[in-house]
């Protein structure tokens, strides 16, 4: 349950030590490069580069692949569709680029403490402060989002188990309605906790 893809793993690789702001800038530049370079060869080279980067940042590749099963299934469908519509070259290009970007992004989050990432985002947003944007709030929203992903996954697991216990696993209503309700209830509880801790004051 705990192994989210790209969850932060403490370490001391050069990638870990690089400041979060620099890593964000590099990722942005890398994304531009990935989009700019077209063709299957560059896609494979970039994918290779991303894999090297991921290994260098000690991203657990096998576990990550397991957690990304859904994405991999989706990419297979995309690859099949692209091969049929536009040929194998385009399929390799599209899927290779996507995977390269996902891996690079996961490497960023796996080697960067959320707090450092937030500080970097705060600094990036600081010019907006003059326009009246409350950047602290924006940063808090980012971290709440990161924290909420495993919680929503857990709610989904529990709802599925509850439906199965009642023999309703084939009913989408028995899954979706309680899941939506519980997710909203959780959001309300989180809001109350923020209030109680005086974070919104």
């Amino acid at each position, binding site marked *: *349950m*705990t192994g*989210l893809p790209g*969850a*932060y793993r*403490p370490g001391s690789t050069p990638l870990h030590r690089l400041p979060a702001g620099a890593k964000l800038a590099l990722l942005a530049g890398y994304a531009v490069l990935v989009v700019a370079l077209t063709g299957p060869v560059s896609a494979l080279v970039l994918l290779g580069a991303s894999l090297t980067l991921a290994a260098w940042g000690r991203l657990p590749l096998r576990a990550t692949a397991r957690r990304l099963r859904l994405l991999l299934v989706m990419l297979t469908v995309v690859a099949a569709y692209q091969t049929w519509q536009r040929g194998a070259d385009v399929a390799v290009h599209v899927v290779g680029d996507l995977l390269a970007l996902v891996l690079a992004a996961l490497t960023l989050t796996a080697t960067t*403490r*959320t*707090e450092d990432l937030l*500080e970097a985002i705060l600094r990036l947003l600081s010019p907006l402060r003059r326009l009246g944007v409350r950047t*602290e709030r924006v940063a*808090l929203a980012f*971290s*709440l989002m*990161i*924290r909420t992903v*495993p*919680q929503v996954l*857990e709610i989904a697991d529990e709802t599925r188990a509850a439906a199965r216990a009642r023999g309703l696993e084939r009913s989408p209503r028995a899954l979706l309605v309680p899941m939506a309700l519980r997710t909203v209830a*959780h959001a309300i*509880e*989180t809001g*109350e*906790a*923020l*209030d*109680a*801790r*005086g*974070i919104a*004051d």
Partner: protein
Amino acid sequence: MIDLDGAGVEVSGPDGTRTILHPVTLRLAEHRIGVIGANGSGKSTLARLLNGLTQPTSGHVQVDGLDTRRDGPAVRRRVGFVFTNPSAQLVMPTAVEDVGLSLRRVEKDARRRRAAALQVLEQHGLVDKADVSVHALSGGQKQLLALAGVLATEPDVVVADEPTTLLDLRNTRLVADRLFGMRQQLVLVTHDLDLVQRCERVLVVEDGRVVHDGQAAGAVAFYRDRELSR
């Protein structure tokens, strides 16, 4: 010192208004105060009035003379709140960041804040969990961490709403010892009739009214009699 002055809570629903808590006047000055009562009796509402999470629809609630409605932020700085479900209370991805969030108001510098947060975790025996995902902690560890986050800002009062209901025996003991060991005034809402014996004063809530107010042993006996004869 917490004062409730004719504080009551009503909610309006589709079938008219419903009284959750009838107006009650209380002065809560004892160091350890327990609140017991059946599910839906209104004891959580009473607890939530104390730090302004719920506002009274009649009367006032004051903490050290500060009104929960008018001086909300100041009251919340004085009164920490521990929820039943720590997963809802812990809002940051890792333990050290969650405590750091509590410290944001007093320590602006990120590096010093992290150091201060680590110190808080050390005091609570959680320093080895500093960079662990909050999600990966056990229920007991989560509740201890939630309490650490509340105590990090040094409030004067801690209100705990069934803080041990989701915990096993050992963790109940751990969390309870932490609660009863702290210097802060404690208002403890609980179903644990052994635990509540450790309070100096215990309120029994039934159908939105405080029906008994006195020493723990008497209150628990009263509650047992009342509930079992219903």
